[in-house]
């Protein structure tokens, strides 16, 4: 049994007359059937009878339904939003499952059996024993080019993706490069064009040949899709304008990491800024291991102190930071 966060597991309100993980078993079965279909046809969007969830549409209802359908008592759940465990929406969804499913939760990537995410793939590698569940606001990668659902489904069915390539051509003609920095479209298993959800294109290469099962749930649009482990995922590009990820000249100011996705933090109103890892667990672990970044000045030091102070009373964060010592 992996180490779990007992504080949230014992949260008040557990049970409350709702079924385990909120959804009734019939619904979960239906969703699991859709997930199986999605795994069998990688990248294909399977329509499913999405239910109303007690969180608003657009806030992760699709990911929550997928998580609710696959989660069991033995599971340990990690929830991240923008790479961080302690953003309000991540906290809220983690609370929801701690309350309705009484499962253990964690902030440690390697301890989680299920990670539900919005907008990031964790920096730490994942394994075959884990499942990554993405929250999907808009599953249809062709939607910005073709608003009609019927036509989009035909384009997928007939593998007519020339129009998508035209939009990349237009970017290069206009800007000299492909000007898509997130939701960067990918081909899955050389067959279906797929939206990787609004993760930064920085994370796209991680999806390729990924050991963990990747599941995608779009609640409002009522679609589920999947990438089975070790599937080929290719970001669209041109032979002479190959796909490239973002790079920073700076390193993480807190932990000194050189190859992570960095958030820009504004330090003052005169343009002062620094960069820190967007993956809060990854960054915290490195700091606990003794890695130190180049804090630019006293303002940044104050920021670091504030983050530490902010997180101290919060069991999750304190645990994450102290994890390296245990």
């Amino acid at each position: 049994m992996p180490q779990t966060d007992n504080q949230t597991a014992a949260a008040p309100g557990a049970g409350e007359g709702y079924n385990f993980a909120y959804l009734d078993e019939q619904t979960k079965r239906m969703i699991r059937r859709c997930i199986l279909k999605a795994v069998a046809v990688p990248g294909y969007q399977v329509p499913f009878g999405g239910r109303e969830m007690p969180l608003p549409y657009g806030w992760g209802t699709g990911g929550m339904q997928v998580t609710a359908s696959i989660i069991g008592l033995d599971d340990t759940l990690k929830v991240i939003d923008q790479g961080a465990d302690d953003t309000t929406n991540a906290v809220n969804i983690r609370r929801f499952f701690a309350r309705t499913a009484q499962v253990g939760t964690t902030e440690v990537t390697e301890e989680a059996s299920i990670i539900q995410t919005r907008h990031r793939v964790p920096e730490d590698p994942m394994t075959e024993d884990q499942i990554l569940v993405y929250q999907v606001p808009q599953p249809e990668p062709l939607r910005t080019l073709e608003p009609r659902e019927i036509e989009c489904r035909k384009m997928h069915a007939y593998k007519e993706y020339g129009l998508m390539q035209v939009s990349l051509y237009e970017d290069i003609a206009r800007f000299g490069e492909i000007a898509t920095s997130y939701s960067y479209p990918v081909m899955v298993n050389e067959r279906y064009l797929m939206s990787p959800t609004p993760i930064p294109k920085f994370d796209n290469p991680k999806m390729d040949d990924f050991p963990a099962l990747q599941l995608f749930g779009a609640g409002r649009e009522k679609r589920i899709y999947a990438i089975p482990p070790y599937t080929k995922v290719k970001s669209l590009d041109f032979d002479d304008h190959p796909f490239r990820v973002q790079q920073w000249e700076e390193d993480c100011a807190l932990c000194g990491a050189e190859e992570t996705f960095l958030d820009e933090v504004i330090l003052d109103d005169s343009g002062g800024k620094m960069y820190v890892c967007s993956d809060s667990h990854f960054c915290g672990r490195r700091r606990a291991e003794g890695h130190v970044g180049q804090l630019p000045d006293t303002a940044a030091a104050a920021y670091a102190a504030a983050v530490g102070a902010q997180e101290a009373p919060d069991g999750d964060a304190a645990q994450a930071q102290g994890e390296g010592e245990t």
Partner: protein
Amino acid sequence: MNDTSPLLRVHNLSHAFGSLLACADISFELHSGEVLGVVGESGSGKTTLLNCLSARLMPTNGIVEYDLRDRGLTDIYALSEPERRFLLRTDWGVVMQNPRDGLRMNVSAGGNVGERLMAVGARHYGEIRSAAEDWLAKVEMDLGRIDDAPKHFSGGMQQRLQIARNLVTKPRLIFMDEPTGGLDVSVQARLLDLLRGLVRELKLSAIIVTHDLAVARLLADRLMVMKDGRVVETGLTDQVLDDPHHPYTQLLVSSVLQV
């Protein structure tokens, strides 16, 4: 008139909208390198016929067969929808009367020409772009406009771009619906010259629908005259226009040529 197998064979084609019969009992053959003009006044069923021939409107009756490169004469409506759509953007071209229907108005000229190449798998930006430049040059467009969207182009330029966009995959058969409609006379003349040159140079086969007999005389080898959905006269262009037999053709020719 030709021993070899035809490129397109049409047998007893009819199409009705509800109780309205738009075209009826049309049969003909088109051979490789031949340009067929379909003339008649508006409402005679020309455009419906063209839509049926170009796999965009399933006829109520009759058969349209095309000589596919890999399997010979094939009923195009027996093909699956993706096969038809593939044919339409590879071995065929369709030049619409209104460029808005045939172009992506918000995509650059280069992107418009390159789309067909990308649709069949081209993934080298430099090569796509140089192919687009070649074709824009062939239709006598200013290469400086390659990154501009056609919504800013004149009508004549839009029409030339539409032609380039269709020819980039080297199709064997082009369908054109009033290709010079709505253009000024001088612009029309230049476009017709261009079209005639391209058809000869590329040995294109084409079916051109027009109400303008001058266009027909300049471009078409053969003519089909339509009235009320039926073909009333066919023959070599010069023969039909200089010595019309059917009273309707006579009327059509005299009313135009008097002007």
